[in-house]
């Protein structure tokens, strides 16, 4: 979710196999660099592999360009890597959030074969995505400060996962 010169990215903490809960402290949000975070929902093994491949590509980029990747560029990279597997896809929906030039927040999400969806306010992914759309739509305000953004994102996340059997067990929230 986008705020005033900041963004927040949040995820739940449950790892499950259909109805059975396997873990209650699973990390889904990864830091690519200080101003770029990636959340990966869906199949856990694909999320981990995808993250490892993206970190590898980003490190190469850092060596060549001697700077961090811009969020828009990173989104393009994720989209391309997902489309490479068009006929045997990664079962993941990424949520990308970063601060671009002049601290302008950038967020986007994709489906599992790389269709980018840019938004100015919020993006959601996961089994409770329909619930999340509703919660975010009603709770979102333009230009929130970091503290208020944190509250909004947390409440939207918690109220949505409370209505989903496959999500829950608390949340991780990162505000940048």
């Amino acid at each position, binding site marked *: 979710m986008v705020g005033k010169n900041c963004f927040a990215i949040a995820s739940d903490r449950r790892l*499950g196999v*259909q*109805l*059975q*809960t396997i873990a209650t402290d699973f*990390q889904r*949000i*990864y*830091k690519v660099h200080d101003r770029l*975070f990636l959340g990966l929902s869906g199949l856990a093994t694909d999320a981990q592999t995808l993250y490892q491949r993206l970190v590898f590509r980003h490190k190469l980029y850092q060596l060549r360009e001697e700077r961090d990747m811009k969020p828009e560029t990173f989104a393009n990279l994720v989209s391309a890597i997902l489309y490479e597997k068009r006929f045997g896809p990664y079962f993941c929906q990424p949520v990308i959030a970063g601060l671009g030039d002049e601290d302008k927040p950038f967020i986007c999400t994709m489906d599992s074969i790389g269709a980018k969806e840019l938004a100015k306010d919020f993006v959601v992914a996961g*089994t*409770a995505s329909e*619930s999340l759309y509703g919660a975010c739509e009603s709770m979102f305000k333009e230009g929130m400060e*970091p*503290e208020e953004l*944190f509250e909004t994102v947390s409440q939207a996340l918690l109220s949505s996962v*409370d*209505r*989903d*059997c*496959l999500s829950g067990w608390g949340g991780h929230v*990162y*505000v940048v």
Partner: protein
Amino acid sequence: MVKPAKGTTTLAFIFKEGVMVAADSRASMGGYISSQSVKKIIEINPYMLGTMAGGAADCQFWHRNLGTKCRLHELANKRRISVTGASKLLANILYSYRGMGLSVGTMIAGWDETGPGLYYVDNEGGRLKGMRFSVGSGSPYAYGVLDNGYAFFFFYRYDMSVEEAAELARRAIYHATFRDGASGGVASVYYVGPNGWKKLSGDDVGELHYRYYPVMPSTVEQEMVEVTGA
């Protein structure tokens, strides 16, 4: 094609003092939680309880229907119907609707002249008499706790006290709601004794989690801290 399990956890067991019946309160439609406050323990009459697993409408309707038939039996025979008789009435009704898509996995628990009684009845017409049952998608986890206990003090013994049995039932439901995504909400515990049934407790399983596993304050639990790495 694998038949989808009924998304719930209910359990009942007989012990020296009577029958302990417990259930969660979550209703799920696929992945969506439609309610966290469903009454899954149905009061058929003041000395008999039925548990709900499967279709909510099916269970509610047929339990109420069973209550009507039990009352008619009382009036016609001038004595209360036994748990055996009541469960047989229900099983025969469900058998006659076999194959029509009813979804009922229920336990009939009560106290009659022969003492405590517990029967498992389902929509395929099955009827089993037993001492311990658990029904629903969370039942394997509940059986794990019920059969072996979570600590030395509360494993299943016939001669438990009412408080010990209630705590065992509550713990079993809690552990099932922990692992099973289709169970959750409130863990209700009912006791059926010689004077009829009595509701003992209804605890939110989230609160039970922190009661059984209290959070130790650690450096991670701080607000808005600089996170060095993800």
